[in-house]
């Protein structure tokens, strides 16, 4: 069954149209990598799927049109991790993860025992139990990103939208976070739609990539077919070498061209 089906999606900010009739579908348990140069519309596409921006066209989650869902219902199915999550530095990790239970908590109510159990399960799964009472502001970049994933997992949805999840992380923490997402995809059956800047990581983790440019789909397919030297030159204006990775996938290496032009 298709977990997510986006058809003819267009988004405009004022008079500027930033997405033009984009189609996207993701099977249950798939990892779709959104790639493309800055301003291509990757973040806007994720926000539209999360219901955070006005759009035209249709979005169906688990076969249900999103227009038939309330905000709360959508939040139980789709979790969104923004590029720069806002979080109060003096909030504890446990309380932050509990924020993810908001779609299950009555509007003016407080969390119940079920919500506490769900949050504790998430802390356990993400190896965050030890950090449960730590303030968010005291965490390292990788730990904070795990807490953000914990908040998203606590929503209990089947679709995880990630906007540059490895932004501002060092190379070790990048691999750690993406391996964790992969692990969750396998164990929890999550469908992952992730905007990714790093083409090598996109090729290694996503089993399907969609290349956006100027709000349109420029190419789609398995990473090896889409991430080519020609596509990168045509869409990013960058000269790169795409090399075979000895462990599978491809490596995108920048190639210097001498002189400024």
């Amino acid at each position: 069954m298709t977990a997510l089906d986006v058809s003819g999606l267009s988004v405009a900010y004022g008079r500027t149209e930033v997405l033009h009739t984009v189609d996207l579908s993701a099977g249950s348990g798939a990892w779709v990598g959104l790639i493309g140069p800055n301003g291509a519309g990757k973040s806007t596409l994720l926000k539209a799927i999360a219901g955070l921006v006005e759009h035209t066209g249709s979005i169906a989650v688990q076969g249900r049109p999103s227009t038939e869902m309330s905000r709360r219902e959508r939040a139980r199915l789709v979790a969104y991790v923004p590029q720069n999550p806002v979080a109060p530095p003096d909030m504890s990790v446990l309380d932050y993860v509990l924020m993810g239970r908001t779609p299950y908590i009555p509007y003016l109510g407080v969390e119940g025992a079920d919500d506490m159990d769900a949050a504790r399960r998430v802390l356990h799964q993400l190896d965050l139990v030890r950090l449960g009472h730590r303030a968010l502001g005291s965490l390292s970049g990788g730990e904070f990103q795990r807490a953000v994933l914990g908040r998203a997992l606590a929503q209990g949805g089947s679709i995880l939208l990630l906007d540059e999840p490895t932004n501002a992380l060092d190379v070790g923490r990048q691999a750690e976070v993406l391996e964790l997402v992969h692990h969750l995809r396998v164990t929890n059956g999550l469908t992952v739609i992730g905007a990714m800047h790093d083409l090598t990581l996109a090729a290694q983790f996503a089993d399907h990539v969609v290349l956006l440019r100027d709000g349109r789909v420029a190419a789609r397919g398995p990473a090896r077919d889409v991430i080519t030297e020609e596509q990168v030159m045509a869409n990013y204006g960058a000269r790169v070498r795409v090399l075979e990775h000895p462990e599978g996938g491809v490596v995108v290496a920048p190639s210097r061209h001498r002189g400024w032009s």
Partner: protein
Amino acid sequence: MTSHAVEAARGRLAPQARMTPGWFGLSLSVLIGAVLTGTLIGAIELPIGGVIGEFLDPLPFVSVEGLSDGHAAILWQIRLPRVVLGGLVGAMLSVCGAAYQGAFRNPLADPYLLGAAAGAGLGATLAIAYGPDTTSWPVDLLPMAAFAGALGGVMIAYTIGRATSTGRSAGTLILAGVAVMSFLTALQTYFQQQNAETLREVYGWILGRLGTAAWDDVLLMLPYAAVSGAALLMHRRLLDVMTMGDEGAEAVGVDARRIRLTVVVAASLGTAAAVAVSGLIGFVGIIVPHTVRLMAGGSYRRVIPLSLLLGGAFLILADLLGRTVVAPAELPIGVITAFLGAPFFAVVLRSSRRVS
């Protein structure tokens, strides 16, 4: 030392968001202490045993000796209305400051600095100068006019602040608020001078009636304070959700704009009710919520209820200071709160700049 103790010593542990009986009990004790102190001290000191006796005597199965008739009259007709009214005003200004800070995600927001109090003043002046005679009406027009003015003031400040900043600067909203406050105060002065026949009434209103507080003033304020306080208490967890930003809050299924509007309306109602009986008092909404945050943590599930209790205590004690420090004269309570609040504001401004 356990690892928990080590982390705590490093200041890296966060207090839990939920209210604890300890903090609630401590704050309630401070409020009760402030009420007792406020009723005991004055031009004529009342005996503590007699005052406690007066409070306990109406309870069933309790029979204790109270005060003499003269002292009882001072307690019930002069001191207690003033203390209760001061407590209500302080509770409202504090909790509304905390609510504005949460709704706008701005640590510097305060009913006074956002233009809410000045808007309430203008609304009330217009009602006194141009409104119909409401003495025979079942409801008093004044608090409603003050409410409309308070809401208008905040909305204008918010609109200007949002239009002129990218939304990340705490200072811009406050600059807009100060501009709105100055403009509304100027308008109020104009209408006040235009209507010489109501000048005295308006002046009396602006300077506040804490000094001449009667139970009527408490009754006038109580329903508005109750509605505002209850609405803000019910939104305490949602104010925590709002700390994740509008996008973060909407991603977990809440309507951030609706929550902001509801909280701002409730806070403006509370501000108007406070201003309608006490005049313009600044900085309470900055001092109390930030003190609560420093002591008990930043979760609104603690900040909102504790600001109610400790805000009440704070203003009772500030009023006590105002009426004793230059006795037999009285210092206006706004002078006391500004004296404490302005340096406090500078500290909050400094730390908010460091965070941003």
